[in-house]
């Protein structure tokens, strides 16, 4: 089932018009044996704000904490129900239970050196 014509017309190593090489790379780059670190602007902001304070609130991890706190405050204030956040796709127990089941099956497989089955019974995931 290899896709037909997986040619090299435009591979990911090509530089699209309007972008420099550096712009297409995130992480660090070796130049002449030296390791140049390139800031990963999409996930982190380490530099301080104009007033010298922490400025990474839109970076990795912070937005999810903000959404959790907002959700908890809404529930406590009586203007939302926990189930509302299942529907919105937040990482509630309902929305993450299957991921956890797979991870736990992996742990059992390593510990007991065997395949682990997963099935759904009466709306609940069970490991076999």
């Amino acid at each position, binding site marked *: *089932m*290899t*896709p*037909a*014509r*997986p*040619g*090299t*017309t*435009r*591979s*990911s190593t*090509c530089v*699209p018009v309007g*972008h420099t090489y550096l*712009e*297409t*790379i*995130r*992480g*660090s*780059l*070796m130049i002449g044996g030296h*390791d140049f670190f390139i800031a*990963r602007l999409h996930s982190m902001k380490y530099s301080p704000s104009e007033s010298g304070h922490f400025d990474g609130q839109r970076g990795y991890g912070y937005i999810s904490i903000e959404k959790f706190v907002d959700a908890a405050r809404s529930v406590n204030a009586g203007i939302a129900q926990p189930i509302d956040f299942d529907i919105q796709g937040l*990482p509630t127990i309902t929305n*993450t239970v*299957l*991921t956890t*089941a*797979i*991870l736990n*099956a*992996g*742990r059992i*497989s*390593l510990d007991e050196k065997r*395949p*682990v*089955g*997963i*099935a*759904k019974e009466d709306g609940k995931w069970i490991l076999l």
Partner: protein
Amino acid sequence: MRHQSRCLHNRNGSYYLSSHHIDICCWILQDKAIPTRVVASAATGIATSEPYSCVPETEDTITLLVDWQSLTSPKHKGTAVYTASWTAPLRSGVHSAQHWYYMGEKVRRILPLFKLFSKKRTIIVAQGDINVDQAHRGYDVTVDDTGKTWHNPF
């Protein structure tokens, strides 16, 4: 080899490391397929050696092989492989080089945004693959009809 210090008292690397990969796969496959079987394998020996000296049960790399059964077709079954490591070579280029590959019966390719406003918007559904590499912007898509194309949503 580099070793991340957070492993020091950790023998549950798969819970920590694979969770994002499995999470996004569950999200993509919701209402389309369910997992039916998991087999895990682990590489060991770096984390438990000097200078890291993690607890003996600490794995270096864990791979999960998961069978996914289609909910719409009894004869369609997928195989997913998730591999995550505590260990990585120094100067390997990026702090976290996650990549993702999908090959399947249906890849839906919607032409870029500037074309969405024209009436010629095209959605191509065909056999193909998708390649995403965290260290590079954009992603590769191959579909039978058009071959390989490179997309940059930024």
